[in-house]
């Protein structure tokens, strides 16, 4: 690249990206802030354009949001830009290429902060492809972004603390939340009291949601899960069941619960396509997710590339903000050629405490292999390509796939529109649990997380001017 118009390009304008942009600006850098959304906030602070007030009651810590938006005010914003690839190096500069409506944009920068966030992790269950079955994050996004309720009688299920704000939000806006079915037993928190007590705000947040659920008389069940959905054209009911320690259904415990919508979430999967495209080192985190290895300054193994937020390990918005601030500061120093100062003790302590909290959260909310016993051979795993659990198992048992990538290529699970974002985790687990397969490794997850084309781009757009000539 001949010139780099920006010192720092920040991809992602959620909690981590906003904090990174604000910190990089404070460090004297020229900053580009790029996000697929039309306004800042990411999934966490999602809202309608210019209308945060209408959904303020659904949000947490809006003061932080407003101060980060102010801090990032002087960044050049590329909103509504879907990044399809990143490339380059610290020596030659980086290029972030995105598609926005009808145009392709290339942003050059000396250093990069990637804050891509995460999306709901899904495990398949019978008839989960029925209309009316939503991810917990999807249900919340509709609520925060559009003030739309996914249904009138809603079942919330899965595992993790995120189920609580989703249920509370739905109830606050008038949905009858028939029940929250948490597959784990969060009483296990007691064992992690140390980690939790250090993050009093997080604890208060949880208590607040619990109180909200009690106020709306939402029953909270533990060690129970939604194991099947029922309905002809849309979901009309679900089967919930009690689970044993390994998440196998306790025989005779199944109950049918009527509902017109289901919201399920099993933790989160970090979006790693952009970091992986640059070849950064990764590891498997405590929750089984592939995450980016970063050092004290949120530096990756690739010089000039910083990663902050969920992509370094799912840990929630406050941790993402702390990591973003550290990453933005370091990226600005690198780009402007100033010496890198030690991370301030305040941020170091905060990041450490929040990471301990996240580790405790993952320990209390694991996803156990028993979910695989809920599936029939005809249960869809990959919805885009309509690949069933039986077909994934056949790729392993009959065709000799011993890793997730091979299972994917032999069964087509994960080769459709979503490129495995929905089914990659399930396919990797189904492959790894077969006899003769190794446990899910970083390499396995990398095989289902690499997406050299990070967002669809039309051939004409990709071709550039030459493509338009071809159309004549």
């Amino acid at each position: 690249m001949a010139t780099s118009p920006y010192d720092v390009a920040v991809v992602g304008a959620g909690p981590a990206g906003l904090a990174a942009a604000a910190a990089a600006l404070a460090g004297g850098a020229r900053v580009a802030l790029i996000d697929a959304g039309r306004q800042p906030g990411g999934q966490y602070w999602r809202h309608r354009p210019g209308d945060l007030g209408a959904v303020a009651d659904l949000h947490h810590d809006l003061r932080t949001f407003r101060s980060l938006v102010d801090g990032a005010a002087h960044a050049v914003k590329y909103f509504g830009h879907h990044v399809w690839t990143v490339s380059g190096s610290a020596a030659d500069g980086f290029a972030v290429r995105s598609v926005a409506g009808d145009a392709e944009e290339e942003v050059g920068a000396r250093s990069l902060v990637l804050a891509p966030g995460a999306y709901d992790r899904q495990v398949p269950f019978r008839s989960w492809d029925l209309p009316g079955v939503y991810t917990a994050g999807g249900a919340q996004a509709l609520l925060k972004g559009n003030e739309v309720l996914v249904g009138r009688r809603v079942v919330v299920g899965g595992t993790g603390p995120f189920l609580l704000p989703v249920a509370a939000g739905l109830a606050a806006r008038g949905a009858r939340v028939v029940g929250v079915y948490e597959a784990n037993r969060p009483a296990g928190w007691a064992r992690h009291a140390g980690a939790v007590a250090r993050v009093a705000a997080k604890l208060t947040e949880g208590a607040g949601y619990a109180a909200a659920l009690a106020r709306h008389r939402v029953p909270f069940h533990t060690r129970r899960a939604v194991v099947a959905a029922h309905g002809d054209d849309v979901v009309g009911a679900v089967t919930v069941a009690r689970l044993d320690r390994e998440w196998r259904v306790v025989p005779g415990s199944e109950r049918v619960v009527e509902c017109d919508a289901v919201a399920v979430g099993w933790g989160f999967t970090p979006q790693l396509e952009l970091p992986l495209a640059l070849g950064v080192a990764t590891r498997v985190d405590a929750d089984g997710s592939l995450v980016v290895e970063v050092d004290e300054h949120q530096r990756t193994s690739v010089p000039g590339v910083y990663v902050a937020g969920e992509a370094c390990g799912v840990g929630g918005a406050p941790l993402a903000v702390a990591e973003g601030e550290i990453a933005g500061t370091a990226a600005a120093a690198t780009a402007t050629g100033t010496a890198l100062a030690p991370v301030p003790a305040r941020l170091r302590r905060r990041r450490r405490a929040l990471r301990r909290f996240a580790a405790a959260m993952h320990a209390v909310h694991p996803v156990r292999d028993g979910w695989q016993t809920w599936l029939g051979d005809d249960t869809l795993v990959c919805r885009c390509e309509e690949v069933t659990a039986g077909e994934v198992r056949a790729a392993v048992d009959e065709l000799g796939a011993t890793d997730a990538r091979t299972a994917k290529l032999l069964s087509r699970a994960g080769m459709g529109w979503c490129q495995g974002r929905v089914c990659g985790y399930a396919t990797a687990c189904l492959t790894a649990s077969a006899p003769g397969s190794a446990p899910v490794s970083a390499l396995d997850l990398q095989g289902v997380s690499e997406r050299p084309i990070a967002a669809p781009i039309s051939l004409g757009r990709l071709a550039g001017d030459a493509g338009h000539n071809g159309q004549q």
Partner: protein
Amino acid sequence: MPTDAADVVVVGAGVVGAATAWYAARSGRSVTVVDRGSVAGGTTGAGEGNILVSDKPPGAELDLARLSSGLWRELAVEVGGFEYDAKGGLVVASTPAGFDTLVSLAASQRDTGVETVVVPAGELAEHEPHLTPSLAGGVLYPGDAQVQPMLAAARLLRAARAKGAQVRTGVEVTGFLRSGGRVTGVRTSAGDLPAGAIVNAAGTWGGEVASLAGVDVPVLPRRGFILVTEPLPRIVRHKVYAAEYVADVASDDADLQTSPVVEGTEAGTILIGASRERVGYDRTLSVRVLRALAAQAVALFPVLAGVQVIRAYRGFRPYCPDHLPVIGPDPRAPGLYHACGHEGAGIGLAAATGRLIAQLIDGEDPDLDVTPYRPERFEA
């Protein structure tokens, strides 16, 4: 030979190793396949699955391709389950001069028995309705076919297992067992595997396996990218490519060459190639290459301009300096056979390669004289 020895150890569980294992197991040999990775995890899993006679001028490679395309037709019945599609290839020329060259190439191919149909510009739309109208003409090759390459390898290995073969993935060959000048097995990360014959079917990594046996086989990686579109109703019926592709395949240039190759698949996606460059094992996405591929595809099929690309992948073709594969026994290391270096034609040539190697191991007369592919041909 120790009593627990296999007749044949095949190094490489790609499509060439799979075909070799199948033909050897079918002729009653005990076979063990080892691969340091997974089934079809190397170049096999990164190709389009072409079985082509159209892109080869008369000579040793076309002879091999013709034998192989007949064998694949048989395998589709005997083994099956790998989306064999005899869809035919359509080669198009953009200039009258290019069309002349193409027509004379087709005439020389026809003399060797390849079926060819010259298609004047005005009739191209009957075969491919969405082609740009600005072409000078084309040649249709009804003998070109396609398989899903990973399924092909996996199904052949499964069929070989049904005949007693063993497939051991995640096992890396670290050296060779020797008795005098002869190789008598392989050392692996999971112990020694003695064998009467060892087949080097390690594809792009065939040179490294050969060097473990102390012999030189010059196989080098030649990178290629493929773009994959969203699934669509069938709008591209054949494998369609530009006449320049034939010249690119034969080029000795290390620099980037791209020529448009466009085809639909059973899954509804359209695959777009083909690029060739010698950059070692660099896995980085090259935006320049992707742009060139997209531009050429849109030039051939203007309707594709609005179609979304959802995936891109890259692979490394096992390339030999004279563009011919290495097939046959190695006189420098008796007991060792090579079946590698097929460049971009490995899927297509796999069936013939496996068959010839099995015949050579059995001491039969091979279906084809393998002299042109002999491994020692590169010795100065």
